[in-house]
């Protein structure tokens, strides 16, 4: 038995939840789908995963860190008030849940906790939504993700074609489900079988094999098309590199951090003109090595969820599954 609601009545559920939470839903806005605060007039996008990953909910593209005032010899540093609002994401897919596992590793482990990230993570509940059909570039199944059962959600919602089913996973999820139970019916359901992946990747043994491939000629080959535009890192749910900068007006300033990309040349520029990654070969190599070998070595998991966004967005069709294949086949 599962708690269900007819798909067209989903807004009632979201409306009710919006009383207690800032509810973020997949919606199309000016042609780009992303998680958007729910209101009656948002255009829900439930057919496929959103283009912009949920990482900016926890790790905004630009984020204020603290304020300061510098005048003559004096300096004041002031932490910013923390937001208290509880948030809820409805409709996060399995692949993007996996990306949160990756980001948790980065921001919450190895001795230091990133307070900015943790704060948002702690006050955000997650309702996952299962996929019926992979998109053109989805290959999560190859990366150890089950598109119909997300890991780490509070509630798993199931796309039952004309209905949505809800299953509480955590205690928090149970609580949320109780809030909306008045709107839900109880029904015996079968979860539709998932479609066939168009894209696949055989990742078995790749991290280990890459160990000896730092100087392999294949990097020169792979990077040839790359424009170093950074689109792949921008849409990637797991890419987490950031820069720190400040905005200053007179005596007052704010320290901000913003997404950065290892695809740009100045990323590793050092004093005296030395740059350890001078050309796109080193940069492309670093990106794929990071995803497929360095991250697994450091955190025991891949830094790619198989969401396929970079495959879709790359202007010259650099396809990570094709690269995985090349690595597999390389001598």
């Amino acid at each position: 038995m599962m708690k269900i609601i007819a798909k067209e009545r989903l807004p009632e559920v979201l409306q009710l939840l919006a009383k207690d939470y800032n509810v973020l839903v997949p919606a199309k806005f000016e042609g780009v789908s992303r998680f958007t605060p729910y209101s009656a007039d948002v255009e829900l996008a439930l057919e496929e995963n959103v283009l912009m990953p949920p990482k900016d909910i926890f790790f905004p593209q630009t984020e204020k860190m603290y304020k300061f005032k510098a005048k003559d010899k004096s300096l004041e540093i002031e932490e910013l008030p923390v937001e208290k609002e509880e948030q809820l994401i409805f409709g996060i897919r399995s692949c993007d849940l996996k990306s949160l596992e990756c980001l948790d590793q980065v921001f919450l482990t190895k001795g230091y906790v990133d307070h900015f990230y943790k704060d948002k993570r702690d006050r955000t509940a997650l309702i996952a939504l299962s996929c019926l059909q992979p998109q053109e570039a989805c290959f999560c199944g190859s990366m150890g993700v089950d598109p119909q059962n997300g890991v780490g959600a509070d509630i798993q919602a199931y796309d039952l074609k004309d209905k949505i089913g809800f299953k509480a996973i955590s205690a928090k999820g149970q609580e949320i489900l109780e809030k909306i139970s008045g709107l839900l019916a109880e029904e015996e359901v079968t979860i539709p079988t998932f479609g066939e992946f168009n894209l696949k990747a055989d990742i078995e043994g790749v991290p280990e094999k890459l160990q000896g491939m730092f100087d392999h000629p294949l990097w020169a080959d792979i990077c040839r098309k790359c424009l170093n535009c950074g689109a792949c890192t921008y849409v990637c749910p797991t890419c987490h590199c950031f820069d720190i900068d400040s905005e200053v007006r007179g005596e007052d300033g704010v320290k901000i951090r913003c997404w950065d990309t290892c695809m740009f040349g100045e990323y590793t520029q050092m004093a005296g003109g030395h740059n350890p990654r001078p050309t796109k070969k080193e940069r492309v190599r670093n990106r794929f090595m990071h995803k497929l070998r360095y991250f697994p070595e450091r955190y025991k998991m891949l830094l790619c969820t198989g969401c396929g966004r970079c495959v879709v967005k790359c202007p010259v069709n650099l396809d990570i599954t094709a690269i995985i294949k090349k690595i597999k086949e390389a001598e």
Partner: protein
Amino acid sequence: MAVTVEQVKEINPLVPIKAKVIKIVQETPDVKTFHITTIDDKKPFDPLPGQLGMLSLPAIGEAMFSVTNKGENHIEMAIKSVGQLTEALHEIEEGQEVGIRGPYGNGFPLDYFKGKDILFIGGGIGLAPVRSLIMECVRNRENYGKLSVVYGARSKADLCFKEDLFENWPKVPNMDLYVTIDREEEGWDGHVGFVPAYVEELAFQPQVTVLCGPPVMIKFTLPALQKMGFADQDIITTLEMRMKCGIGKCGRCNIGSCYVCLDGPVFTMEQLKELPPEY
């Protein structure tokens, strides 16, 4: 209040605390040492030798520097003027308030050095991180064996920490100093020549060595050390990569799967051989 490493992990590690510069020493035409305390005259944090701190003039920038020495109530950073922030730091006067966060990085493996003869090799500003360990050895002289220091700079004026080199360290028991400059110069009767050749010429027999300096110095000194029979785990150096966060999050400073800000900056040659050759 001086904070411990554990406390730093409790507070938001990306937000600096306010500190002030209480003393500035002009070391060379482009290097100054800054003595830094908290507003209430305490150590901003208690670093191990070799650890790092992020120093900022927030309106201008923030950068990582080795803590070259610590006192009862202050820490020291020796800073070379190379760009935006460091030039601005060279303009400030005593009493200037700054932001600081740290300590970061692993620091030197002190236990490994205990009881051993140590050879310190530095070039230019590269003596800054090495000095933090020399000072530890000088402070706790009985814990370490013979100390030898080979230090070189382009000219006499470019030698950092002259007070230590020519006044303080010569008085330390069982410590030998070998200072060299690249070219002959009026008023210099010390050694002339590059560090790698000098090291080779001196033919040391100590047990461990710590070296830090410009890449060419490292490149040519390593073979000399290997010839003298130093094992890879006994050759210790510090690395520099660009850094932003200092806590292993921003992704800036990776060499392979290791982050220099967290897992370094101190590495043995043995560890470096495990890492990719060119980042």
